[in-house]
């Protein structure tokens, strides 16, 4: 449809996302001149600050990249540190880390689905008006959020910036009463989970499709891969974690100073929808049941439905976490594995020079940490590639396809559609330490 329309959209600080981002769109005579998503967080320079710090401090520091994803950053950081040091975590440690990731996904996805995304779908500016109109829903959301937070508190001391998960293992392991408390908190969520699924079934999303490449961890075992595995894509690519740079191919776009990523085509997608599309078969049977009930099948090319993929993952992580807890309860926890490391003053862990990579699925997609360390275990160089950075290129390509499809609508409707699209990706801009775009247009 040829529309001779001028449009000038500038959304400063997209709300209900983690961090600061701007949408900039210019249309002249129906021709799109600019459709961009800018990250405007002030640079925090984490990778620079890590230089000279002990690799045993990296988890503590990089967890502070993001409050929402602090467990995910911790786990990617720990994996990178252990890879550099040549430490192989025990089976029990891996199990507990998978449990921690389940909690991180539950917590983050519930926050996103209820408090950040649902207000759009219900046509209100935030959850605050919903306190009046949908009081029971808001109470349920806060109750679920708190329960996820509480299980994390019990497992690792707290959810925002976990305390006991460190390179090497855990400084404190859950006692039987701690396992019971976590099981009870999750079991008590059963009814709220069922209500969440009922709510999910009523949500309507914009009908928009764009084929792209989906990138996530893949594995050959039966586990839905969040912590272990290799990097894979829906275009059939597969790389070892060590070779993450071959998957991300960071490049600078001449029209801005930002770093973008791409793999087999112009852009790729990371996050719940990518994992769903790549690893559907490995979802917990209960999660698959929900996907079938919602009529949600891989491969899905509608980015708005990332929120639905998050709902499916809520179900998966809920059941997966309970299985791990019951297994730990049945088989017991080996407390001799509790560690005191500090900055390794007493040499609890042998140190060597190395170059380590961590690649972990976090709620918003695959996250990479890479540290090069010297013989004393001090960090010489650090690199972090964050899910949101990887998605920005894909978001802009979505904008370019979506805009002509909705160009006849009012400016307000177009703005909302673009904001909703950005929010569907659940972008975490606090995390975007590696990406920054300061090219402003007015």
């Amino acid at each position, binding site marked *: 449809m040829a529309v001779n329309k001028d449009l000038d959209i500038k959304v400063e600080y997209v*709300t*209900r996302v*983690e*961090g600061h981002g701007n949408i900039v769109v210019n249309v002249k005579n129906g021709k799109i001149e600019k459709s961009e998503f800018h990250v405007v*967080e*002030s*640079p925090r*320079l*984490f*990778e*620079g*600050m890590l*230089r*000279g*710090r002990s690799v045993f*401090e990296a988890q*503590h*520091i990089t967890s*502070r*990249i*993001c*409050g929402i994803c*602090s467990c995910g950053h911790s786990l990617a950081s720990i994996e990178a540190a252990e890879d550099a040091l040549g430490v192989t975590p025990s089976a029990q440690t891996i199990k507990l880390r998978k449990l921690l990731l389940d909690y991180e996904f539950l917590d983050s996805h519930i*926050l996103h689905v209820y*408090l950040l995304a649902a207000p759009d779908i219900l046509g209100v*500016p*935030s*959850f*605050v008006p919903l306190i*009046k109109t949908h009081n029971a829903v*808001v109470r349920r959301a*806060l*109750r679920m*959020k*708190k329960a996820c*937070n509480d299980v994390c508190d019990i497992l*690792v*001391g*707290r959810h*925002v*910036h976990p*305390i*006991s998960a*460190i390179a090497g293992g*855990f*400084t*404190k392991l859950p006692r039987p009463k701690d396992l019971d408390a976590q099981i009870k908190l999750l079991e008590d969520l059963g009814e709220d989970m069922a209500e969440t699924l009922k709510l999910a079934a009523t949500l309507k999303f914009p009908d928009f499709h764009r084929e792209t490449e989906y990138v996530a961890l893949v594995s050959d075992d039966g586990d839905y891969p969040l912590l272990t595995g290799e990097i894979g894509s829906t275009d059939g690519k597969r790389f070892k974690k060590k070779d993450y740079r071959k998957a991300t191919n960071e490049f*600078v776009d001449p029209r801005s*100073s930002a770093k973008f990523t791409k793999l087999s085509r112009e852009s790729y997608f990371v996050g719940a929808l990518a994992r769903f599309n790549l690893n559907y078969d490995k979802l917990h049977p209960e999660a698959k049941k929900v996907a079938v009930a919602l009529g949600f099948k891989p491969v899905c090319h509608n980015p708005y439905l990332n929120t639905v993929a998050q709902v499916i993952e809520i179900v998966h992580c809920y059941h997966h976490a309970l299985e791990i807890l019951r297994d730990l309860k049945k088989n017991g926890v080996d407390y001799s594995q509790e*560690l*005191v*490391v*500090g*900055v390794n*003053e007493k040499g*609890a862990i042998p140190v060597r020079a190395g170059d380590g990579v961590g690649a972990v699925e976090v709620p918003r997609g695959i996250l990479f940490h890479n540290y090069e360390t010297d013989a004393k275990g001090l960090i010489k160089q650090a690199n972090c590639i964050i899910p949101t950075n990887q998605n920005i290129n894909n978001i802009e390509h979505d904008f370019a396809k979506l805009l002509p499809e909705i160009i006849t609508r009012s400016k307000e409707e177009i703005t909302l559609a673009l904001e909703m699209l950005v929010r569907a990706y659940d972008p975490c801009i*606090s995390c975007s*330490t590696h990406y*920054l775009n*300061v090219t402003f247009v007015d």
Partner: protein
Amino acid sequence: MTNASKTATKPKVAFFDFACCEGCQLQVANLGESLLDILGAIDVVEFREVMSEKWDKDYDVAIIEGSITDHHAEERIKKIRARSRVLIAYGACACIGGVNGMKNSFELDEIRRCVYGKDFKLFDSVKTRPVHQVVKVDYFVNGCPIYPPELVEVLKCALRGLPYTVPDNPVCVECKLNENVCMYDRGVSCLGPWTKAGCNSWCVNNGNICYGCRGEVKNPAKNAASDVIGKYKLSAGLIKNKFEMYNKCKEGDINGGK
């Protein structure tokens, strides 16, 4: 609900974030349903992370998260201060600079080039400062992240116009009450002896060390501290380096930097 009629008299509270991880804001959402009780007593008029609403009048209470790390932030915090009756520095980044302060150990151009390459000049960045080094702060909620019970206490004081005194004894006091084995006796160094209490020795309770996130006590027991360093044969440099993870911006206070 009679929210509409009460709104006019409820204190107007706003949250603002600067350079930080936004984890302290998230601690608010983590209060769970008791958040609704707090929301019953106040009127949150801006909270970008979870709300699209905006407010164009003055604030009774502005809660500031994050450090001041660029020129734009400096202008913005001054404008917020001018519109706010009470201003609360919220979390380590706002109160003491926090982990953002580690940047100050490097030469600015050098660290920017390290992260952003040859285009580093496009990325505005100044020395990290906690909020009180730029504008007047009325209340401090320390910690990385903040300890939620303390937030509730500070809010109660701020809304009633009462003073709140941050505990000025070391974390060790709480740690002893919690019957933790001293981390020094477990073979590693810990910043508990130098760091303000008020977190209920959160990290040590969970088997880790204190990293100093609540800032240094006003009058650290220097002799006792050197005894500890001597007894466990530690280098003062090790402790100083650890301290700079959160407390590097303290230099700005010592130098009278406002």
